[in-house]
């Protein structure tokens, strides 16, 4: 190994030995260190408890839509629905919202706590502080209404109270249906109607 007198040449000579060795080491270990472990992200899945869902066959956020014989669209949506344990073609649902759009462009919207939709007898019964709103400006509260699914008919046999466009109104019962001879859709209050108008 030649001896050099000045520092520079010695430095270069040592570098010629160490630098290749360092590069060799670097290259060798390059593939040894993995790029950080593959962290396994947890698979996103709903935290709904599966057993009760399966057991009750519950549906969340269902909507039910139908077109009646006279061309009105009835749409019922609910927060949750489950088939009636005793009778399979009856569906009970809660936080119900229903909308009946009549062919003459008027509409009736209803909100209720719960509903029982009975397929075969084609009736949807809404109960639990029912609110009915019509495009003619009537806002009615009652505790039970029955909506017929195959023809546009909404009936509330129990007392109804609420707001008419011109004042507050109360009646023994109420029905929204198509008047057969005139073909118009009428909202009819029955059994002693009382309207109070403040001029």
């Amino acid at each position, binding site marked *: 190994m030649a001896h050099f007198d000045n520092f520079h040449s010695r430095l270069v000579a040592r570098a010629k030995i160490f630098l290749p060795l360092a590069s060799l080491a670097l290259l060798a270990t390059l593939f040894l260190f993995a790029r950080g472990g593959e962290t396994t992200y947890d698979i996103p899945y709903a935290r709904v408890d599966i057993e009760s869902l399966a057991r009750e066959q519950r549906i969340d956020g269902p909507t039910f839509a139908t077109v009646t014989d006279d061309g009105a669209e009835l749409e019922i949506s609910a927060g949750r629905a489950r088939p009636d344990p005793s009778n399979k073609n009856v569906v009970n649902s809660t936080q119900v919202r229903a909308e009946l759009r009549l062919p003459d462009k008027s509409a009736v919207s209803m909100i209720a706590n719960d509903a029982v939709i009975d397929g075969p007898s084609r009736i949807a019964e809404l109960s639990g502080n029912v609110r009915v709103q019509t495009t*003619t*400006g009537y806002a009615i509260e009652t505790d039970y209404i029955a909506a017929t699914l195959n023809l546009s008919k909404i009936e509330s046999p129990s007392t109804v109270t609420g707001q008419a466009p011109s004042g507050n*109104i109360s009646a023994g019962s109420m029905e929204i249906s198509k008047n057969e001879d005139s073909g*118009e859709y009428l*909202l009819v209050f029955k059994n002693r109607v009382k309207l*109070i108008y403040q*001029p």
Partner: protein
Amino acid sequence: QGAEVTFGGLKHDSSLPVEITSDQLSVDQSTGKAIFSGDVLIGQGALRLSATTVEVIYGANDATKISKLIATGGVTFVNGGEAIESQRAVYDIQAATVALSGDVILTQGANALSGQSMIVDLKTGTGRIEGRVKTILQPGQQ
């Protein structure tokens, strides 16, 4: 010819709430037309107007205001001691007038007046009866 009649005498306050009761109220969903039917009774203060059907006429620009009530079929209009019967009556709430037509019969105590039509101005408490006016006075009553 016509006759001027003081009617009701007592001042009628037309800002009192109007209460309409009947057997049935049907509202046409497309036009919003509201018709009371089945012994309809309109009450406001001392005023009573009963008929078989009453149609509600809303204000032209404001659908929450009722401008007229058109009563038809055996109308009886009572205000204070007097009563008027007719076939038809239009109670204009905003103008506080009642226009009765069709064999109007006004009975005031024992006296009776009949004619074809009558306009009652509720604010002044006066009425004007027109068309073949006949008066039937019961002498010796007062």
